């Protein structure tokens, strides 16, 4: 008898869970029709809250949650500003992170970095301020990076002036290493064009150092 009661209770719970609209909890788009991996979203379902053909990362293209009314029926999340998925998440790297970041990216730390805390607006110990960039701190990054890059690029290949073949190849390699992601073709082209355009710089190694410093000054390195 006891076993029968237990079995009945478990069966009822299983049945209740089966009727739960799981998509309302997970936000999965394949609501109704097929289940799980077989779900198909043809963009025609009027209830899925999406806008067919729109960029799904942009605000307004999917359901953004339900109101949370509190006292006086005021929605306490009503003043939240909609933003794109993944947008405005990167932040400026603090000065305290640059030493290890230079070491990671280039294998050495520029000698001038230790004396450059003030240029980055480094804050006193036990005090916090969101790091920001400025003209002076970014120029400082460029000059420090140039020195570190110049000391690093000692391979014989960097004794040769960049060419239409070598510039994109080396730029892409450098960007991948410094940014820890694959660069887009446009990003590599910007680096290569700059490197090839420094024709008035007679020392090949300095041309490559400029290319390296430029990559190190871009948002791919100075932010995270």
């Amino acid at each position, binding site marked *: 008898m006891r076993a029968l009661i237990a079995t009945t209770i478990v069966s009822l719970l299983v049945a209740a869970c089966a009727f739960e609209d799981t998509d309302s909890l997970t936000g999965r788009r394949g609501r109704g029709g097929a289940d799980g991996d077989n779900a198909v979203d043809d963009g025609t379902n009027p209830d899925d809250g999406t806008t067919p053909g729109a960029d799904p990362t942009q605000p307004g293209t999917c359901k953004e949650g339900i109101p949370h009314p509190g006292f006086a029926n005021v929605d306490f999340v009503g003043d939240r500003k909609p933003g794109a998925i993944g947008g405005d*998440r990167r932040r400026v790297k603090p000065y305290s992170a640059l030493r290890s970041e230079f070491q990671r990216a280039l294998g050495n730390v520029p000698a001038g970095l230790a004396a450059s805390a003030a240029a980055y607006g480094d804050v006193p110990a036990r005090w916090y301020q969101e790091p920001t960039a400025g003209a002076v*701190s*970014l*120029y400082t990054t460029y000059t420090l990076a140039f020195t570190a890059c110049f000391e690093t690029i000692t391979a014989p290949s960097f004794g040769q002036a960049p060419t239409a073949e070598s510039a994109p190849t080396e730029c892409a390699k450098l960007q991948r290493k410094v940014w820890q992601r694959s660069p887009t073709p*446009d990003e590599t082209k910007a680096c290569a064009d700059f490197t090839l355009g420094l024709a008035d*710089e007679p020392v090949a190694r300095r041309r490559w*150092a400029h*290319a390296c410093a430029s990559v190190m000054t*871009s948002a791919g390195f100075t932010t995270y």
Partner: protein
Amino acid sequence: MKPFSRRGFLKAMAVGAGAVVGTRIPGSSLIGVARAATPEPTSVVCVYLDGGINAIFTGADAFMNTAFGVTANNATNMGGVFVDNALANAIPQGIRNRVASVGIRHGISDHGNAQRSLFMSGNASAPLMLADSIGGSGAIKAAVVGGNSLPNGARPAPVNGVSLQPITDMRATIEAIAGAQSAPNIADRGGAAKGVAAAQAMSTSVLAKHKASLSSVDQGLTAAVATLNKPVQPFNVADFNQAYGLNGTNVNNFAARMAAAELMVRSGTNFVIAQDGGWDTHGDTNGNNVRNMVTQRIAPGLRTFLTRMVEGAASERNVVVAIFGDFHRSLPGSDHQANLSALVIGKALKNATSGKTDARVGLAANTPGIAGFWQLLGAASRVDQSPFGANPHTTLV
């Protein structure tokens, strides 16, 4: 060839007039064209006392022998503007006839709201609007010295490409303006200018996706490229250190902020703000706390700056200094009064006051508000087209 017509003639005239007017339109420092919206190099320097400013520094006569410890012996009459001696001693004799006090009846008595509102004009940043309207050839047109934001942590959106740039180190700033020494392993200025521009090009997609959180990077890269493309200006850290009594290059005290302000003014910056904290002086009923802070922290650097940049450079540039805070301190407890007067010093100013406080730290009912303050600064800057409108404080300029 089209036949000559009256309409065509008028169109051609309009285009020609537009081209002429275009060279006088302020803003857009990115195209590298020096634009003279003022008759001479012009800068407005704000000294902001974070927390409030006691009215003994803008109209001490209101409290003579009655409040805040004011007596005939500790205030100086500058043509009707009575300034407590702690601050008066920082104003060189030669420019004491160029001191005015301007009333700001803003009706705000909480710090956050006052600090936000004092630097806004509509939905835009008033300092950046002013910096933009002054024009000139400086690469960095607006700067905050010794910090990275306006009061209350505000980081304003650029106005016509003019952004607020943080200046936190004299040496690094001078290197950016003047260029570093030449050496095989040091970046040359021409290459760096192109390199930073390339860095900006490489950052396009990242900055587009993180517009708000990385706005300082975007604005900083733009200002860096503009700075590196300007002719080199020679400056020497040692000169500033000697003049302002400094030991290092970190802009981390008020004297260093005034030194950095001078550097930026000399390099062509139109708007500079130097802030000092600790001015929420509740309970300072005899005014001694604020007197001591002015004497010890503010006066030394301010005196040097006024001597060198307002008095000493009057023949070559127009530098306007405005000293103010969130609001005046009220009576009897030196709390929050919902108004203030600012002390404004510069060669365009006259000895006069539109902010004469009464014995209860009140201002006349018809005293203009925050907009009037920026209208006055526009007039004192002598911009040909003030973005703030006509100056209501006509007796001061």
